[in-house]
């Protein structure tokens, strides 16, 4: 991972290392940290391909506001990866276009 090795002011305390996959490739990141940051640390900069112009997009605002970092996470499209925490075994995929409604899966807890 491309992490800051020494810093004059800050000390970084990362959590547990977890495994996840990006487009089928195995990667490692820190549990609870945003997916987008884990991807960047693994050298991944392209997170989705836009629906109309087929342009590559990465993150831009990193505070969950701009929609630039939408990806498919565990089958769910349009996930704001800059504010979604990474968990063990997550399946992260480049989103192409608008994404499709995930069918046949348990979603949410809005009972």
């Amino acid at each position: 991972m491309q992490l800051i090795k020494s810093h004059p002011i800050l000390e970084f305390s990362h959590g547990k290392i977890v495994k996840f996959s990006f487009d089928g490739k195995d990667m490692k990141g820190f549990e609870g940290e945003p997916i987008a940051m884990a991807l960047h640390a693994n050298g991944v900069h392209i997170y989705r391909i836009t629906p109309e112009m087929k342009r590559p997009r990465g993150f831009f605002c990193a505070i969950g506001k701009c929609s630039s970092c939408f990806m498919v996470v565990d089958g769910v499209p349009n996930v704001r990866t800059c504010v979604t925490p990474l968990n063990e075994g997550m399946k992260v995929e480049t989103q192409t276009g608008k994404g499709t409604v995930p069918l046949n899966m348990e979603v949410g807890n809005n009972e």
Partner: protein
Amino acid sequence: MSEIKKTDILIVGGGAAGLSAAAEAASYGAKITVLESDLHLGGQLVKQTHKFFGSKDEHAGTRGYKIADIILKEIEDNKENVEVHTNTAAVGFYKNDGIVTAMSGEESYFKLQPKKILMATGAQERIIPFPNNDLPGVYGAGAVQTLMNVYGVVPGKKVLMVGAGNIGLIVSYQLMQAGVEIAAVLEALPKIGGYWVHAAKIRRLGVPILLRHTIKAALGKDVVEGAVIQELNDKFQLIGEPKKIDCDVICLAVGLTPTNEMLWQAGCEMKFVSQLCGHVPVRDAKLRTSHPDFWVAGDAAGIEEASAAMIEGRIAGLAMSEALGLKIQQENYGIYQERLDSLRRGEAGEKIRCGLGMAQITDWGNK
């Protein structure tokens, strides 16, 4: 969706303003719910490695990320009064029944019924138009700070910074602290917008600050591989020859604009004030908007500094507690107002004073 969560005060945004308001109001016994859309509290404070200026009352001399800890510790003293939801955004306000809908994560929703609401939602970054400005590697300055100062990830090898306001200057220095090279800092205006002390820090380290320069295009097929920059004349027209810059990140520090969609939704009287960098709610000196149950504080009320956001949060916390009928320390109004006035004195505060002249009213009367 089952029960509706009741609370005295809902604070939307757990940054400099929101946390200060929570600390103040919790000390008078108000029951508070804080919604924070990020994964942790602290807002922009936790991304700042530099020592703050201003007055000791606003922790001058302390580094930003430590100020967040100080306020959180204060809240800890009244923690039974404060409930915090991180990774949770307020997504809607219903005028007819005063219900706020919140989204936790990406999939889960719940409702809140607060008596008073503080919008301490901060700001969002502006973007400027140029070809390929959507390429991965063109990042907002706040995003670069999040990446390197919160999560310790190296943003890139060489960064072109666009904008020599305080954010552009500070983030350039922070990038160097993280071991990243700065190709140059561009500024379209003929002068540096930020404080000289921040500019001097990076100039001493040999970083060129190119005044009257703009970015013409980002280069690269799938990700940023460089940039084209060009000089501007006094009328902001391109002059001279375009120049290629080698970089893998283009960091945009071209300004912020207040985030306050829910105030629009609540029907608050809004006004465009260029000195406050966008549409802002009209408010009184105690930060109440035209809606009797909505307050505003921090960058959501107009782009200013974190020190001002912290004091505004205090005033709003005080005023909401008073409106709830709680016994407050009346003299705090005067103390906080004096601190705000002192921050806004002099040449540096002129823009803000002018903006407030347009956004602030003396009294809502019976409204």
